[in-house]
């Protein structure tokens, strides 16, 4: 049976993880390569590395880091952060990433989705959508780390992304992000029902129940989180055990 995927996300700046990670057997909590291997061993289904570096030098470091991660990691991983050209995608995939994630650049230039899908296949392309409910009561796409509201409605944009060749949607609710009060079930469900491709839910996951609900009610195919895994509040093995035993959610 196809399982629901659990995906830890690591923020990277200048080739190092930004937040400290509470692993017992870790020698260097800032080394993404060591953390990646540790997550894989814990049973994470995939990993996402988000480059939040602003400098050109930092971006070069990130490509080198992707190559080092690819050499050791035996599960799939996605890289994202500031990708805006097919050439950047080519370098990251050649370095060994399985998928790239694009966000603001796709909103600015939707043709980028078609171009990446045509060159590398839909399986290599995740379109990340940051969504927040505006005073009009509708969920709108936000760009630039969720700071800038756009006129695009989230569900319609997700459908356009799928039509243009996205292989997956990574949907982050800015309303829920950082709260650990649970994923945004309504918008996740609306997007998941509206597109024929898998949806990764992100933002607000704090407990196994939150994941169970976003899989069952939100119809997400995967759940992504950062802090709960990094700080050891809810380690991947414990989360999966609870999903399996308490909530009868199929996980690997």
């Amino acid at each position, binding site marked *: *049976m*196809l*399982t*629901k*995927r659990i995906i830890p996300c690591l923020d990277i700046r200048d080739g190092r993880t930004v937040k400290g990670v509470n692993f017992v057997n870790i020698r260097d909590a800032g080394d993404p390569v060591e953390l990646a291997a540790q997550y*894989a061993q814990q049973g994470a*289904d995939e990993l996402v590395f988000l480059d939040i570096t602003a400098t050109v030098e930092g971006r070069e470091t990130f490509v080198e880091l992707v190559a080092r991660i*690819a*050499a*050791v990691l*035996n*599960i*799939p991983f996605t890289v994202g952060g500031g990708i805006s050209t097919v050439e950047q995608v080519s370098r990251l*995939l*050649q*370095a*060994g990433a*399985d998928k790239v994630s694009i966000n603001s650049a796709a909103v600015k230039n939707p043709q980028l989705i078609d171009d990446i899908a045509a060159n*590398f*296949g*839909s*399986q*290599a392309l995740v379109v990340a959508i940051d969504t927040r409910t505006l005073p009009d009561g509708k969920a709108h796409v936000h760009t630039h780390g969720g700071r800038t509201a756009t006129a695009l409605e989230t569900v319609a944009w997700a459908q356009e992304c799928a039509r243009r060749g996205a*292989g*997956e949607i990574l949907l982050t609710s800015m309303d829920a992000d950082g709260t650990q009060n649970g994923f945004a079930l309504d918008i996740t469900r609306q997007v998941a029902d509206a597109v*024929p*491709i*898998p949806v990764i839910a992100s933002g607000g996951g704090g407990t196994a129940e939150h994941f169970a609900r976003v899989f069952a009610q939100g119809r997400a*195919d*995967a759940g992504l989180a950062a802090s709960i895994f990094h700080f050891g509040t809810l380690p991947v093995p414990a989360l999966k055990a609870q999903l399996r035993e308490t909530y009868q959610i199929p996980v*690997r």
Partner: protein
Amino acid sequence: MQVAIVKYNAGNSTSVAHALRRLGIEPVLTDDADTLRNADKIIFPGQGEAASAMRYLRQRGLDTLLAGLTQPFLGICLGLQLMCTHTEEGDTPCLNLVPVQVRRFPPGDKVPHMGWNTLDSVSGPLFEGIPAGTYFYFVHSYYAERNAAHTTAQCTYQVPFSAALHRDNFHAVQFHPEKSSEAGERLLHNFLRL
């Protein structure tokens, strides 16, 4: 041991090469006829679109070259589909190394079939030490039909399909062993021992 990865326009060779290195093998990525013929093992990865991949292979004569190889040969993902008779993707005749048809998943559930799925049944030396129920990582929108003589592993997503095929020296898996954690490493290890 010389392991050759077939170089062509749809081969995602980086991950496969890394997986082989983790097993102590330094593979060679090549489309050279002599190098391929003389290799001990051949790996035929694949990712992308079938019609353009087949066109590329035909234009360079790689289709007849691959069909004539006699050493252990492992197709992965699109590689498996290209080894079949025909695929619905672009209505494309394929290499016909295994007499099986490739079809598009029916609309209904999400396509691609993406993520970790279990094998319903397994047989043959590639799956030594890998019991039915083991998880592998899949990403594909088309699937190879089942064939009583050639299906060596079955998986189910909407429909039961061939997760692995075998005929003579030709082996193929629909999942990505290079991305399937320890189980994938075991499968590659088994292949290298054939």
